[in-house]
C-alpha cells in the first residue's frame, strides 16, 4: 500500500495519543519511510475531545488528514468517531466503540445520547464499511477500563485484512512505548481485542 491515513478520536483519558504513537512506531517498523502524526491536545484532561492523525507512505507531508481521505477512523468513543466522518474516504472503514460518554451540555440540558443503531444503519447506506465493537466490557483479566484503545486496536488488526500494520509490529511498539508495569496489561487487552467480533458489520 503506497499511502495509509488513520484518524483516532476519543475523549480525554482514553489513550488517543498513546494508540497513535503505537501506530506511528509500528508503521515505521512495518517499513514505511515517511510517517507523520498530528494531534490537538490542550484540555484533554478536562474531558474535551481529542483527535489524532497518523499518516504514512508516499506523498505524506503534513500532519492533517484531508477531507475524504482517511482509510480508517477509529472512534474510541462513539460520538467522537462520528464527529470526523467527513474525513473518511468512501471506501474507508469506520470503526466505532460502544463507549458512550455524554457531554456536559447533554447532561445539563437532559439530551439523550444518540441512538447508535439508528445512526449506524443510516451510515451503512452511505459507507461500505461500518463497524461497531463492544470494546467496553470485553472479557479481559485486568478489566477493560482505560484499555479500550488497546482492545479496539487488537480488533482492527485481526478483523481488517487490508490494515497495513501487522500484529507483531504493533506488539513490539506497545512494548517499546509502555511503562514497564503496564506492558502486560496493554498486551493482554490487545490480545483480548483480537478475539472480538464486531456487533455490526
Amino acid at each position, binding site marked *: 500500500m503506497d499511502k495509509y491515513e488513520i484518524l483516532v478520536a476519543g475523549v480525554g483519558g482514553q489513550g488517543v495519543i498513546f494508540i497513535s504513537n503505537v501506530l506511528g512506531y509500528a508503521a515505521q517498523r512495518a517499513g514505511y519511510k515517511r510517517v*507523520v502524526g498530528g494531534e490537538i491536545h*490542550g484540555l484533554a484532561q478536562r474531558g474535551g475531545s481529542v483527535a489524532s492523525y497518523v499518516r504514512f507512505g508516499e506523498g505524506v507531508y503534513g500532519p492533517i488528514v484531508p477531507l*475524504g481521505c482517511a482509510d480508517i477512523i477509529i472512534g474510541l468513543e462513539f460520538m467522537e468517531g462520528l*464527529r470526523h466522518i467527513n474525513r473518511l474516504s468512501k471506501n474507508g472503514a469506520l470503526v466505532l466503540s460502544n463507549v458512550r460518554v455524554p457531554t456536559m451540555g447533554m447532561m445539563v440540558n437532559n439530551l439523550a445520547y*444518540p441512538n447508535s443503531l439508528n*445512526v449506524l444503519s443510516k451510515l451503512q447506506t452511505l459507507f461500505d464499511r461500518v463497524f461497531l465493537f463492544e470494546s467496553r466490557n470485553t472479557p479481559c483479566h485486568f478489566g477493560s477500563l482505560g484499555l479500550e484503545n488497546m482492545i479496539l486496536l487488537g480488533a482492527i488488526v485481526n478483523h481488517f485484512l487490508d490494515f497495513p500494520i501487522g500484529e507483531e509490529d504493533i506488539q513490539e511498539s506497545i512494548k517499546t512505548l509502555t511503562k514497564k508495569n503496564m506492558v502486560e496489561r496493554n498486551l493482554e487487552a490487545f490480545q483480548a481485542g483480537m478475539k472480538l467480533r464486531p456487533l455490526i458489520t
Partner: protein
Amino acid sequence: MSAETIAMASPGTEGYVLGNEAVARGAIESGVWFVACYPGTPSSEISDTLCKLSGEFGYEFEYSANEIVATEAAAGVALFGGKSMVIFKGAGFFVASDALFHLVLGRLCGPMVIVACDDPSMHSSSDEVDLRMLAQAGSIITLVPSNVTDAKEMTIEAFKLSELMRVPVLIRMSTRLCHQRGFIKLGDIPKRRDNRMDWDLLKGKWERFVPMGGDPVRGEMLKSIEVIRRTKNIFEDNKLNKLVRAKSDIGILTCGVTYGYSQEAIKLLDIEASMLNVGTIYPLPEKLLKEFIQELKTLIVVEELRPYLESYIRALAKDVKPDLQIFGKWNGYFPQAFEYDTTIVMNSISKAMNINVPMEYKEIEKRTDFVKEFTFPRDPVFCPGCPHRATFYAVKKVTKDKAIITQDVGCYSIGLTPPFKMGDIVLCMGGSIGVACGISYFNDRPIIGFIGDSTFFHAGLPGLINAVHNQADFTLIILDNGTTGMTGFQPHPGNDSRGRERLAKKIDIENIVKAIGVEDIKVVDSYNIKELMDATSDAIAFRGVSVIISRRACSIISRRENQRKGLKVVAYQIDSNKCEGCWLCIEKFGCPAIERDGEVVKILSESCNGCSVCAQICPFNAIFKEDTNGQI
C-alpha cells in the same frame, strides 16, 4: 516515554517525537546552559521536556513567574557568555516584547534563542497575531521550521547564528508543528560541563549594555541595522530555505507547515510547480526571492495568518517582475483567518489555476452532514472534585447573576460555559483585576474578579497594587489550586518546588495581598460551600478592594498524589430513596461524576474524588459517603 526518547544519547538513533520535543532535543544538542519559560499551550512540551531532562544534562531550568522575567534572565545569561533559551506561546511574546525589542540593540557574548508558538485557529489561545510581523517590527532574526526534522535542525542553527550575530534569534513555531509527530535522527550531545561565566574569555568581547536615550542608543540602532544586513547575506544562500525547481512557470511560495500542505496539494491536483519554502523569515532573502520569481509567470503564496511573504513579494515583483501574476490573500484566493490544511490549500490553488479538484466535496458534505445532528460539542469541563466548580457555584448562589464578573486566563475560564456561564470579560493575563478596577469607578453593581494563583503571580500583582492604591471597589477571588493547571501542572512562585523536585522558596499569596494594603482578606476552603458563600457576601458588602483566597489543591494533582501513596478515595453515593430527581447536582453543579439514572441520579464511583460538595448542596440530603451508611 517522550522525554526518554529525547534523552537517548546514542547519535543516529531515530525517535518519533513531537515538534516541541524536537526543539528540546536541539537545545540539548547545542549544549544549552539555561532555559526559562512561562508555560502556555502549544509551547508547553518544549519546556516540560527540558525541565525533566535538566538534571541529566546539567543545565539550569527555570519556570519563571512570567515571560518577561524569563526573557530578562535568559538575556542575563547570554550577555555574559552563556547559552540560553526562552520559551513561550504567542501571547507570551507580547509580554516579553519590552525586553526583546531592546535586547536586539545589545551585543550578546553567548547565544540566546527565543522559541515562541503561534496558534492559528486559536485552538488554545484567543488571538491570531502573526509573530512574523512582530519579529519584523522589532528587527528580531527569525527562523520558521516546517516539519519536525526542521524544528530540531533550526534550533541548532539558531544557536549558531545567535552566537555569530550576537543578537537573540527567534524560532517561530505554530500549533500544527508543535504537535506534529515525526521521526528525527538524534545527534551528538556535548559532554557535560560545569557552566560558569569566564571573565578571561569575555575580555575584549563584553561591553556595557546601556542603550539609554540619545546618542548612545542611536549608535546601537545603526549597528543593529548592520547586523540585519549581514544576516540577510547569510540567508540568501542557505539550506534553511528549500528551493525545488520544476519544469513549470508556476511557483509556490510557502512558510512553515504550509510547505507540507502545498506539496500534498500539487500532487493531488497533479500539477507541476516550482516551490520555495522560506525558513529564514526575518530578514527575508531578497536575492533568492527575486531569482525565484524571475522565471515564473504565476506565483501562489501559501502562508497562514497575515500576508507577510505576499506583501514583500508584491513589493519586490513591482520592480523585477511587474507582469507576475500573484495569487494570495490580497486578492481573496486564500483565507485571511485560521489554520490551513491540504484541503484548503488544494481548493485555493485550484481556484487560482482554474482547474478541478479531484475530490467531490459536495458529495462528502451530502453524505456526512446528517451526522451533525448526532454530535454535540464537547467543551472542556471542570474535573470531578475541581475546587473551581465549588467556588463558582457558591458565588453564583450569592450574586444570583447580578454581579459583573471579570475573568482571567486559566482552567477557571471553564466557568464561562454551562452550567455556570459566569464571566462578562476575559481580556488577557491579569486582566480580571485591571478591568474590574476601571469598571468600579462608574458602577454600583457588585464586581467580582476571578484569577488563578499562577496568573496572579504572572500579571496580577501590578493590577492589584494599582487598584488598591487608586481606591477601586471590587472583590477579587484568587483561585489557589497550587499549580499552573491548564497548561499541565507546572510549578509557580506559590509552590515550594521549582520542578523536578528541586526546592524553592514558597511565596505566600496572603502575605502579598496584605502587604499591598488590601484590608479585607479571607482565606477559605474551596470545598466548603457555606464558608465560600459567607465570604462572598461579606466581601461584596466591603467598600474597597476585598480579596478571597479560595484554596484547595487541583483535583488532578490530588488524585495523582493519592494514587502514588496508594490511598483509595472514598466515593460518594446517592440514596435513591431520598433523591427526588431535582437534577440540581447535574444542571446547576455539573460534576461529570454524576449522571442521570432514570428518575434519580447516580455517582460514578470510579470518577468521584470524594470532594463532598455535592453532598453539601443536595436539598434532600440524598448524597452520602460510601462507607458511612448515610452519615456524612
